[in-house]
């Protein structure tokens, strides 16, 4: 197996480990030195926004412990850290969602206190949130301008100008959609881009992006990169959070690494390398991209023959002609750009959407799941991409969220087997390094990545014959990603057929045995992962292929 | 309007206060029975649902429909006046039952037994049975409702005038319902250090609820309970001694009189001798049970 140190979960949680080579000697303040300002700035540029010694506690648990960081005009700073390190919390403090329990915030060198998001907004700070926070019922244009609707001479809302500006903002991101359509009709990825467009229309001085690319595919990410460069050239300060380290290299000039609520290192991206960043985040060595044990594919479990969705559904027919085979003990990677129809394909297999035409064969026999329950009964599991909307029960405990699929069978009369559930969960907590103060606390008290791990555990525990995973590591940090990857490899090795949908090409390449590409709802290629390259796949995912 | 002729077909809208009170259900049933006997009379019924706007809307609809006559028990005397005037202007004859509307002189007749007067009869029955005074619990109807106010007022008028020896030890709203009457009485009985001698209730349902509470406390026969309405259940209870009395306003008689008066006018143009056809309410005790209108329904 790929794990060098035995119980990785425990190791990660020890904050105080002396073995953190790249860590600066606990450096609050030092990273805030104006010296770390962008090279292009002539002389010394005063920081625009500066956090000094931020402390934050939730439920009495210290989440941030004296973190300092600064942003100068035109600076693009990466904020890095494992799941639960406190990145989103810093952002919440910078934008007035929460108030710090200690430390201070300076804007243009003067202390400020934001008690509401409104005030941060007025100060020119706009935020792209990690969890989508859009208005499902409003039109795209209105969602982009919510809170800042343009007015005409009569003091009424200027719908025309608003639509025009919204169209322009989306075009900058390379997206052409009907700005009158309700937000709810968009894919997660498009919603993510609407969220980005929202921040761009604000003419802000500081733009904070919390994992903006979590569900974007390479094309959109490249667009975003250009925009960040434009913003920076225009003197806007950017704080950029992502678990994709290649993006950090490409977009950011400076960085700050958080670990367990403390800033452990900071500096210029050009003067560090990815392995040392990972070391700083994890506080240990992490082996990246370890290949799994060789797997022996068995009989076909799932076969799709010219599958198509119902024409005239929302947003048109997303899936037109998809054919593929997934065998037992094999991981099939499904690659495609946003809107290619991967999620919709998965939804049809799992019985969430009606099938238009074509065949689904399960274990060689025609199969149509009328409902998720039927699909589960047939041995299919599905981890959806939309964690907040389709996976978690927000008010319920971690344990209950885990038990939801009934992986641990109930006793007579439907009596819950609580000890059995607790035992099963404890195994996954160990295995995946799930960090939770209490398994009986609501799942919303966990960081996004840890929530994702609980959801994965929920489905893996069910021991399906076919597991469909849609964006398995969306929002998961590097270290945990390795845990999740090795777990996926392990269940495949155990004979489960895995259909892996991911917009993260390195992930698809690292995990899959074979890779199928989709373009506009049609399969365009199939090849062994060993023969595939990023460039080759991209070509087949896009029109130019 | 011109008389329609002796055997003309006649359509009449009947709009009672509410069908939630058996009083009006009985009134309407008897009225329909009388109409059947007269022959050629179609009765259209609308439920006032204790709402003046609802009643106004119903009458407006009836005017459109072109009825010949309207029998109305107005939820509110002032509120219904304009629409009644409108009906009369449209050539429709109007008779009020149970209670009048205010300020419409052209109403053909008001066939009524005043709630205030009935409650006075209730109070007088108490005075008669307890000449030396009594401690009294008063169960009122729906707060703010006109019937509740009138019945409360009538009882108070008599008993307050009868002197200091009549003491209201508790006054609570039982909302005209049996379960609320029962609950409130249970609570009052425990709250009072001494058992009251009399319970007066603004309708029979509450009185019957109170009788159950009294029975459950083992006080049967020690508290005299006075109802109002002369309903079937109440008459039975008077007979068995669970209630001391109930007040009969003779709703059936009112209904019959109203419809025959109205039809006579529509067909033949005959007006009643007086526009006020008053039915005197009577307190029914075990002694005069045979005077009750619904006594026939309670069997032997």
């Amino acid at each position, binding site marked *: 197996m790929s794990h060098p140190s035995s119980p990785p979960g425990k190791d990660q949680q020890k904050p105080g480990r002396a073995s953190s080579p790249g860590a600066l000697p606990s450096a609050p303040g030092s990273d805030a030195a104006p010296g770390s300002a962008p090279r292009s700035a002539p002389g010394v540029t005063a920081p625009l926004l500066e956090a000094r010694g931020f402390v934050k506690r939730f439920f009495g648990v210290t989440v941030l412990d004296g973190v300092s960081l600064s942003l100068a005009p035109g600076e693009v700073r990466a904020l890095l850290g494992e799941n639960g390190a406190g990145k989103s919390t810093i952002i919440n403090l910078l*934008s007035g*969602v929460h108030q710090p329990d200690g430390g201070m915030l300076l804007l243009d060198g003067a202390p400020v206190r934001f008690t*509401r*998001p*409104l005030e941060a*907004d*007025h100060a020119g700070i706009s*935020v792209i*949130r990690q969890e989508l*926070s*859009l*208005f*499902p*019922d*409003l039109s795209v244009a*209105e969602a982009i301008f*919510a*809170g*800042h*609707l343009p007015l005409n001479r009569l*003091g*009424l*809302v200027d719908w025309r100008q608003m639509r025009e500006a919204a169209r322009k903002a989306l075009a900058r991101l390379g997206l*052409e959609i*009907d700005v009158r359509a309700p937000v709810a009709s968009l894919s997660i990825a498009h919603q993510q881009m609407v969220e980005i467009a*929202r921040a761009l229309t604000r003419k802000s001085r500081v733009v904070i992006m919390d994992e903006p690319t979590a569900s974007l595919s390479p094309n959109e990410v490249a667009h975003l990169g250009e925009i960040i460069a434009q913003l920076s050239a225009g003197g806007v300060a950017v704080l950029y959070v992502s678990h994709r380290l290649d993006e950090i290299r490409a977009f950011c000039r400076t960085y700050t690494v958080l670990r367990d609520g403390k800033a452990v290192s900071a500096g210029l991206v050009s003067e560090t390398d990815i392995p040392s960043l990972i070391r700083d985040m994890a506080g240990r060595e992490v082996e990246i991209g370890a290949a799994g044990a060789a797997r022996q594919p068995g009989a076909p479990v799932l076969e799709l023959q010219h599958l198509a969705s119902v024409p*005239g*559904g*929302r947003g*048109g027919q997303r899936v037109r002609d998809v054919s593929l085979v997934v065998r037992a003990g094999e991981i099939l990677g499904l690659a495609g750009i946003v809107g290619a129809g991967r999620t919709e394909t998965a939804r049809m297999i799992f019985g969430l959407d009606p099938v238009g035409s074509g065949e689904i064969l399960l274990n060689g026999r025609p199969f149509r799941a009328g409902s998720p329950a039927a699909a589960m009964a047939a041995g299919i599991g599905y981890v959806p991409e939309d964690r907040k909307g389709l996976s978690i029960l927000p008010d319920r405990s971690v344990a209950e969220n885990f038990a939801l699929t009934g992986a641990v069978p109930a006793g007579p009369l439907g009596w819950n087997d609580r000890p059995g559930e607790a035992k099963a969960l404890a195994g996954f907590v160990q295995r995946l390094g799930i960090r939770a103060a209490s398994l009986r606390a609501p799942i919303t008290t966990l960081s996004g990545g840890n929530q994702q791990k609980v959801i994965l555990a929920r489905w893996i525990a069910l021991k399906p014959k076919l597991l469909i995973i849609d964006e398995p590591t969306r929002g998961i940090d590097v270290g945990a990603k390795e845990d999740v990857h090795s777990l996926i490899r392990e269940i495949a090795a155990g004979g489960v057929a895995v259909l892996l949908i991911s917009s993260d090409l390195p992930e698809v390449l690292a995990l899959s045995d074979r890779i199928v590409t989709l373009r506009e709802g049609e399969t365009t290629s199939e090849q062994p992962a060993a023969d595939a390259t990023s460039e080759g796949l991209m070509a087949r995912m896009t029109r130019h292929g | 309007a011109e008389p329609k002729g002796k055997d003309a077909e006649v359509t009449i809208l009947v709009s009672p206060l509410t*069908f939630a009170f058996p009083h009006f259900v009985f009134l309407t049933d008897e009225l329909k029975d009388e109409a059947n006997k007269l022959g050629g009379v179609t009765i*259209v*019924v*609308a*439920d006032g649902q*204790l*709402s*003046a*706007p*609802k009643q*106004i*809307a*119903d009458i*407006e*609809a*009836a005017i*459109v*429909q072109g009825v010949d006559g309207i029998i109305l028990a107005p939820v*509110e005397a*002032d*509120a219904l*006046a*304009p629409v009644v005037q409108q009906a009369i202007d449209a050539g429709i004859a109007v008779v009020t039952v149970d209670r009048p509307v205010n300020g419409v002189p052209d109403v053909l007749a008001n066939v009524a037994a005043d709630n205030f007067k009935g409650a006075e009869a209730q109070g007088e029955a108490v005075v008669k049975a307890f000449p030396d005074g009594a401690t009294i619990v008063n169960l009122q109807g*729906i*707060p*703010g*409702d*006109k019937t*509740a*106010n009138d019945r409360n007022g009538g009882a108070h008028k008599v008993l307050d005038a009868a002197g200091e020896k009549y003491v209201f030890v508790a006054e609570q709203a039982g909302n005209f319902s049996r379960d609320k009457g029962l609950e409130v009485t249970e609570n009052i009985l425990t709250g009072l250090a001494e058992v009251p001698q009399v319970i007066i209730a603004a309708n029979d349902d509450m009185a019957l609820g109170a009788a159950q509470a009294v029975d459950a406390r083992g006080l049967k026969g020690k508290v005299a309970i006075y109802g109002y309405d002369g309903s079937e259940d109440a008459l039975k209870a008077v007979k068995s001694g669970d209630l001391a009395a109930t007040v009969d306003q003779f709703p059936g008689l009112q209904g019959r009189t109203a419809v025959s008066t109205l039809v006579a006018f529509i067909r033949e143009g005959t007006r009643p001798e007086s526009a006020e056809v008053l039915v005197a309410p009577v307190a029914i005790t075990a002694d005069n049970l045979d005077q009750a209108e619904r006594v026939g329904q309670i069997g032997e």
Partner: protein
Amino acid sequence: MTKAQADELSRARMYALLGKLAPLIFLLALVIIFASLQPRFLLPLNLFNILRQVSIYGIIAIGMTFVILIRGIDLSVGALVAMSGLCAAVVAKGGIEGRFMLSADGSGYHWALAALAAILAGTVAGLLQGMAVAWLSVPAFVVTLGGMTVFRGIALTIGNGGPISGFDEAFGWWGRGMIGPVPVPVLIFAAVALIAWVVLTQTRFGRAVYAVGSNPDAARLSGINVSGVTLSVYALIGFCSGLGGFVLASRLNSAEAVAGTGYELTAIAAVVIGGTSLYGGTGGVAGTVIGALLTGVLLNGLVILNVSPYTQQILVGLIIVAAVAFDHFIKRQSR
């Protein structure tokens, strides 16, 4: 965009439009049925009757539209109508004989002052409820359920349980007067609806109402003053209830504590029949007007057809559910 995509889009738009028209279609169907069963239903007199009957709870339903759009609810409107009606009555009469006097010589005040009193009472009561919802974060259902009994209690206390009636001509004009063939309350209803429509569709405040209802957290993060919007919306329905209370008192020439009983449910029904979602964020005033008309037509038509009162209740319930089911069915087709 390809042509096929454009076609699909315009088809989707057509369906969406149909979805918006669903309540109207249902209303027309109902009118046609009633008219064919009883032609007198279509007499102008009857149509104006329906309009007048609808107008008071229609005014309240307009306010309720705002409340429901922000995912709220207001069960207190019926009680507010009673309370503010009594306030107007007390002012118009200059006090209550034998209990308390407002003016030195016992004479009443001008209708304008009375109207002001009603509207003020309603607005302040609404504002108080809005505070409890926005600042104490007590669910609106609870606050206004409490408000319902509190305001009814206050109304009882004001009038000591009895009605206050008999106002002057000018006072009565607002509820019973006509301008040409059109009853005054209908005009008031129309004006309120029109203003509300402009506010909801064309102003920042109106759009903030939709944003708050669609996603309150996102609204807060977008810099919208969510508590401010909440407060204003409850004050607004208080205003509408106060106005409704005044018009009702004027129409009935009397105010009493049991007035307006059940208006809350009628108003909510009108809003929901009109296609506004109880989960907030979608719907609007135009639908509410149709919803109010639909309930009015229903009650009027059943009486005109001489349906027995018990059966009427059964039919009203079934038809309301059917109207909303129809709306949802059409809307689902457009997905």
